[in-house]
C-alpha cells in the first residue's frame, strides 16, 4: 500500500521535514501521557508517508527509547519515579518484550493491530469513567506490596505538597506488564498506555507517579526488543533519524508542560488520544485481515 506522499513523489528533504514535524507532535503527546509516542508515529508513517510497516515499527522503537531516556532523566532527578516499582515490573516487561520480538515474525500483524485496538477501546472506556483525582483513592497497599517496599512519594507542584502512596494487586500488575512487554516487542511500540493502566487502574498508584514511572520503564522494555529489530535490518537510518530527532524535541516540550498541569487535564488528553488510536488500530487491523492492508 503506497502512501499519498510517495504518490506525489516528494523530495527526500520534504519527507524528512514532514516526518520530523510528526515526530515532534508524537513526542510532546507521548511524554504528556507517559507513552513513547509509538502508537502515534506508526500509523502516521505507514498511512500518510508510505513507509513500510517494518521500518515504521523499527523507527518507532528508536523513538520510544529516546523519549523514555530523555524524559526519565528529568523525572528521576525530580524524584517523580518509583525506582523499586519500575525495576520490579521491568522483570515482567523485558521478558515479555523478548518473547514478543521473537514472535513478531510469526503472527499476522493485522490480527495484533485489531486486538490492540480493542484493548485500547476498553482503555478509553475505563478512562472515561475515571474521575482523574489529584490524590490516590486508597492509602492502604497490599501486604505483598509492603513486603516488596513498593510504596512511594513525590512532590506535586500543582498541589504544592508531598504525595505519599501505596500500591496493591501486584500479581495482576505483573501480568499486565508482561502483556505490555509482549505488545512492545511484537508491534515496536513503547506500550506505555498499558503500563500506565497497570499502575494507575490496577495497582492504584497516583497518575503522575504512574506516567513518570511508565516513561522510565519504556526505554528498558523497548531496548529489550530493539536489538532484534536492529539485527533484522528493520531500523532504516533515513526513517529512524527524523523520527528520533523529532520525538526528542517534542519530549522536551512535553516534559516541561507536564509539571505545570493538573492530572484532570492529562486525563482528558489521554482520553482523546486513546479514542483516535483505538479506531485507527481496529480499522487497519480489519483492513489487513481482509487483505487490503500492509503485511
Amino acid at each position: 500500500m503506497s502512501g499519498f506522499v510517495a504518490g506525489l513523489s516528494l523530495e527526500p528533504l520534504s519527507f524528512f521535514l514532514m516526518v520530523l514535524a510528526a515526530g515532534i507532535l508524537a513526542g510532546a503527546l507521548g511524554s504528556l501521557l507517559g507513552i513513547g509516542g509509538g502508537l502515534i508515529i506508526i500509523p502516521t508513517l505507514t498511512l500518510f508517508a508510505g513507509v513500510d510497516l517494518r521500518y515504521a515499527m523499527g523507527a518507532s522503537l528508536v523513538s520510544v527509547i529516546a523519549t523514555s531516556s530523555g524524559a526519565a532523566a528529568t523525572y528521576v532527578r525530580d524524584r517523580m519515579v518509583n525506582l523499586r516499582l519500575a525495576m520490579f515490573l521491568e522483570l515482567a516487561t523485558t521478558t515479555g518484550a523478548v518473547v514478543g520480538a521473537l514472535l513478531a515474525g510469526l503472527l499476522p500483524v493485522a490480527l495484533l493491530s485489531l486486538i490492540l485496538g480493542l484493548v485500547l477501546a476498553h482503555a478509553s472506556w475505563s478512562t472515561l469513567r475515571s474521575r482523574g483525582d489529584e490524590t490516590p483513592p486508597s492509602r492502604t497497599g497490599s501486604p505483598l506490596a509492603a513486603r516488596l517496599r513498593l510504596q512511594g512519594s513525590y512532590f506535586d507542584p500543582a498541589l504544592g505538597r508531598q504525595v505519599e502512596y501505596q500500591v496493591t494487586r501486584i500479581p495482576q500488575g505483573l501480568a499486565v506488564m508482561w502483556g505490555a512487554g509482549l505488545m512492545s516487542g511484537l508491534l515496536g511500540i513503547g506500550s506505555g498506555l498499558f503500563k500506565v493502566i497497570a499502575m494507575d487502574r490496577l495497582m492504584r498508584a497516583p497518575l503522575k507517579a504512574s506516567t513518570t514511572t511508565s516513561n522510565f520503564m519504556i526505554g528498558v522494555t523497548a531496548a529489550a526488543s530493539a536489538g532484534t529489530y536492529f539485527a533484522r535490518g528493520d531500523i532504516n537510518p533515513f526513517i529512524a533519524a527524523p523520527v528520533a530527532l523529532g520525538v526528542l524535541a517534542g519530549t522536551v516540550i512535553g516534559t516541561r508542560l507536564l509539571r505545570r498541569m493538573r492530572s484532570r487535564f492529562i486525563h482528558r488528553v489521554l482520553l482523546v488520544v486513546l479514542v483516535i488510536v483505538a479506531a485507527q488500530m481496529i480499522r487497519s487491523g480489519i483492513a489487513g485481515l481482509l487483505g487490503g492492508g500492509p503485511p
Partner: protein
Amino acid sequence: MTEDSANGITARRMELLVSYVLRAGVLLGTALIVAGVVQMARTGQTGYASVLPHGLGALLAFVPPGSPGHFPTAPGEILRAAVVGKPYAIIELGILVLIATPALRVAVSVGFFIAERDRFYVVITLLVLAVLAASFLLGTG
C-alpha cells in the same frame, strides 16, 4: 524506607548518576544522528546504494539485509564505516548508542540499590540486566 542519612546521600548521588547516564546517552546518540544527517545533506549521499536526491522510493521500500548496497546491521561494520564518514553508518552508530542507554541505566541502578543496602532489589536489577543481555544475544544470533 531507610532513614540513615549517609545512605540517603549515597542513594541520592546514585539517583543523580542514573539521571546523568540517561541524559548523556541521549545527547551522544542525538549528536551522532545529527552529524550523520548533516553529512548526508552536505554530500547528497547515504554511503550506501540509495542515492539522494531522486531516490525517495528506494529510500523507503523495505530491502532485506544482505542485499547489495544495504545499510550495515553489525556493530563492528557500522563503527568502521562511521569512522570513514559514511552518513548512514554515523546515524546508525547514534541509534546504537540510544539503544544501549537504557541497558547502561539498569547497570547503574545496581549501584543505587547497593547504596540503599537493598539486596533483594540488587538481585532483581541483575536479573533485568541478564534478560537485556539475553535479548541482545538473541538479536544477533
